[in-house]
């Protein structure tokens, strides 16, 4: 609910809204045209949410709105007033990484890292509603997240591994040379 509206000297209206971000109510003053991704990054300093295409194609700005993945570049902040938002900063609990994050690190599913926050949140939403997905289901769930390093094979592997509780690859999965590190 919009609890207050302020009009500045140029006649531009600003709206006081409250977003529940990662469990905390955060009250911010926004213009009607403020985009959720920008408010998260610039007002709330939650810069884990990345901006890529800004047109709802790439998925790097994915957040969970009421538990569902959406592109935060395509949501007006004011439309999210009073709603629950989970950003990548809210996935780890008490500094303990989520199984998906752990698996993505251990399965080398992170290359440049730009798509990772969005990937993790799309995967998180999937595993929350479907704890044991098939590979096609994982691919479908992350199909709105583009990885321009094209590291999809390891990302899919990591999400499947997380769903099965295999948080790091066994030796048989990635035979390594002596002394080689991950």
């Amino acid at each position: 609910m919009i609890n207050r509206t302020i009009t500045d000297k140029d006649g531009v209206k600003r709206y006081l809204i409250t977003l529940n971000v990662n469990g905390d109510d955060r009250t911010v003053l926004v213009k009607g045209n403020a985009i959720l991704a920008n408010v998260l990054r610039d007002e709330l300093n939650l810069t884990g949410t990345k901006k890529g295409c800004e047109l709802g194609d790439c998925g790097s700005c994915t957040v969970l709105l009421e538990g569902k993945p959406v592109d935060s570049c395509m949501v007006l902040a004011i439309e999210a007033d009073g709603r629950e938002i989970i950003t990548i900063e809210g996935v780890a609990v008490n500094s303990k990484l989520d199984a998906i994050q752990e698996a993505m690190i251990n399965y080398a599913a992170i290359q440049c890292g730009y798509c990772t926050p969005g990937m993790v949140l799309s995967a998180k939403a999937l595993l929350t509603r479907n704890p044991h997905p098939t590979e096609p289901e994982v691919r479908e769930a992350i199909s709105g997240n583009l990885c321009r390093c094209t590291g999809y094979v390891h990302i899919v592997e990591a999400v499947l591994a997380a769903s099965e509780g295999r948080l790091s690859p066994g030796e048989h999965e990635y035979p390594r040379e002596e002394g080689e590190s991950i």
Partner: protein
Amino acid sequence: MYMPDFEYHAPKTVAEACVLLDELGEKTIVLGGGSDLLHKMKNGHITPEHVVSLKHMAHLREIHHEEGRGTVIGALVTPNGVYTSPLLQERYLSLPMAAHEMGNPQVRNRGTVGGNICNASPLADLPPLLIALNASVKVVEYAGVRVVALEDFICGPGKTLIQRDEILTEVIIPDQTATGSTYIKFGLRKSGALAVVGVAVAVTVKDGVLVDARIVMGAVAPVPMRAKDAEAILKGQVITDALLEQAADSAAAECKPITDLRGSAEYRREMIRVLTRRALRKAIDEGHV
């Protein structure tokens, strides 16, 4: 990306919204999910001074069946809402399947059925199938309500019969006599791709005879287009492969595709021929609406 300044309104009821639309004047726009609207605003295609959000109207997010009227889908139901609706899965399985082909998961959580219609893109995924199923839309203004056949409602690229002070609130799919329907979309990728062409059909089959058939083609005309000659070829005929081929040839001849970045006119016409044949066969064989 640049977004123009505007004043934001979030009325509690449809009636309140209609009054606002009337009062606020020409440069006012209705916001559903925003997946099309924000795109247009960011690109500078529209610069509204007022945005009227429908977000408080929870009843527009519902799907229900009314005896004698049909299945009613609220304008704010998302494609994901269509996909996961037990009611739609039971009654019109092809519609959840079509909704699942749209955009990508994020867009399917944000876009709306009403927006997909009002945006009136020639390549929108839901209108062809909805038209094949004979759907209509309920449009509300302050002084009244009207129900318009969806086929008539969409009248050009980005154009519908909706007036400035009206709001599309419901899509109504009548109870079907059709025995089968389907929508086949041809996009260049599995996800995040717009239709190069799309074909929706609804068929009524009795004892191996096509009693009735409706064929609607997407992305090959300014609006979702009925292939009426092809429908006439099929009507009352015994189903054979040759008959379906003949109808598909007719549909390809009827459509009016253009060449753009997603495909040439020639290619689209050929794909209409292929997909019409496949869609008819699929709707006949699978036997679910």
